[in-house]
């Protein structure tokens, strides 16, 4: 397939960009469509044109129903060989304190039956306090923080819990439309006990004024479902003269395999 063309990366300065007003109108149209048809999607809509990059990257044929078999009923196992406990602290990775609002993000990873997902890998990545990623394709002219990589990993505890010490990421501009800004977010990558539970998502911070404008956040067309992406501020998690605490629980899809330990597993 030598005819494969190399795509040009979307650039923040591309011409002929739609206005926020036009994008917002498109978002509202699609959400009204879903509302009218009584579809309460709990997941992001794959076909969501206000997010321009999705136009050529969503399947147009219906997904094929499949019962999970064999390998799909299992998940890779990760352990202390894979993850250093220090990787859950994003404030100590580069020999100095990163600039920003120090926060803890903690919560539990549960499966679709409400059971904790134990000892499983959680990976996160995020922009720094100025809204800049350490990534060669991020050309946003905000400062790089030499003391911040924005990458963390951990294994969940017996109760499915995880905890990251980090700084609050900043919002940043992107090339989707004119004057487009992403709300501050942290990317999360998750595994369950079955490969069918694999997922990647984004966690947002409560009360962000950019929510209504963001086609990625709004691709979850149901308002109640959207709120599941937003952490809550938890003052009991905040630490005296040290950090602010956010709590965010993640629910994976339900398992298909019947396992022996499940009956006594509700926590």
């Amino acid at each position, binding site marked *: 397939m030598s005819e494969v063309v190399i795509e040009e990366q979307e650039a923040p300065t591309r011409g002929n960009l739609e206005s926020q007003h036009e994008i917002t109108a498109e978002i509202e149209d699609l959400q009204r469509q879903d509302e009218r048809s009584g579809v309460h999607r709990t997941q992001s809509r794959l076909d969501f044109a206000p997010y321009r990059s999705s136009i050529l990257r969503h399947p147009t044929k219906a*997904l094929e129903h499949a019962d999970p078999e064999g390998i799909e009923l299992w998940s890779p196992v990760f352990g202390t060989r894979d993850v250093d406990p220090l990787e859950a602290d994003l404030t100590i990775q580069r020999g100095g304190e990163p600039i920003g609002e120090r926060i803890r993000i903690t919560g539990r990873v549960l499966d679709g039956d409400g059971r904790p997902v134990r000892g499983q*890998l959680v990976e996160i990545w995020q922009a720094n306090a100025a809204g800049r990623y350490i990534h060669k394709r991020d050309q946003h002219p905000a400062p790089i923080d030499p003391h911040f990589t924005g990458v963390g990993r951990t294994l969940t505890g017996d109760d499915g819990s995880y905890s990251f010490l980090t700084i609050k990421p900043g919002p940043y501009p992107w090339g989707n439309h004119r004057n487009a800004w992403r709300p501050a977010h942290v990317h999360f990558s998750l595994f369950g006990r079955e490969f069918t539970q694999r997922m*990647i998502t984004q966690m947002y911070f409560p009360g962000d004024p950019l929510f209504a404008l963001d086609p990625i956040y709004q691709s979850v067309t149901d308002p109640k479902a959207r709120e599941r992406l937003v952490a809550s501020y938890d003052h009991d998690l905040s630490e005296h003269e040290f950090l602010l605490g956010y709590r965010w629980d993640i629910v994976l899809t339900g398992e298909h395999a019947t396992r022996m330990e499940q009956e006594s597993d509700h926590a």
Partner: protein
Amino acid sequence: MPESTTPYAAERGPVPTPGQTIGPFYHFALPYEGGEHLVAPGCPGAIRLHGFVTDGNGTGIQDSMLELWQADESGQVVQQPGSLTSDPGRFTGFGRTSTWRDGGYSFTTVVPGPTSQGAAPFIAMVVFARGLLNRLFTRVYLPDDAEALANDPFLSSLAEDRRSTLIATREADGVYRFDVRLQGDGETVFLQFPRHEV
């Protein structure tokens, strides 16, 4: 969307958190050294599984990430840590790679053995990309055992032109080609499992 035809339909638990796009900036976080080599290249039984991830125009997607999950050659599912280490001798059955600038990718792995009676073995694959708002699951079947493929209940349930998108082509001894077409001509079959919503 409600699914009512499966034995898993009785939902009592919490509602799953929405998935979101991986975005363009995951390269410094998720891929790890040796992630594309489930076994060391050149070791006995090693095969190369490669191809392109393309969009609705047939253009290669340069910021896609693929993961493989599979049994070993005897059909055993490995349940051992070590996937994220760079030990070339490990085989955990898990691999991860991001696509190159032209949308191409390549894994080194082994032919998976059978895990379910009466079903053709396959490699489970999950696809992430900027612009793709949630992950997509698919399966990579290898072409060599035509009888097993012909008798596989899932493959048999698919229309002929769709079925072929899940079967890698053999390019040479130990070299297989599997393209992931997110949209358009020859669009890859992606899976919806019970308890999942599109």
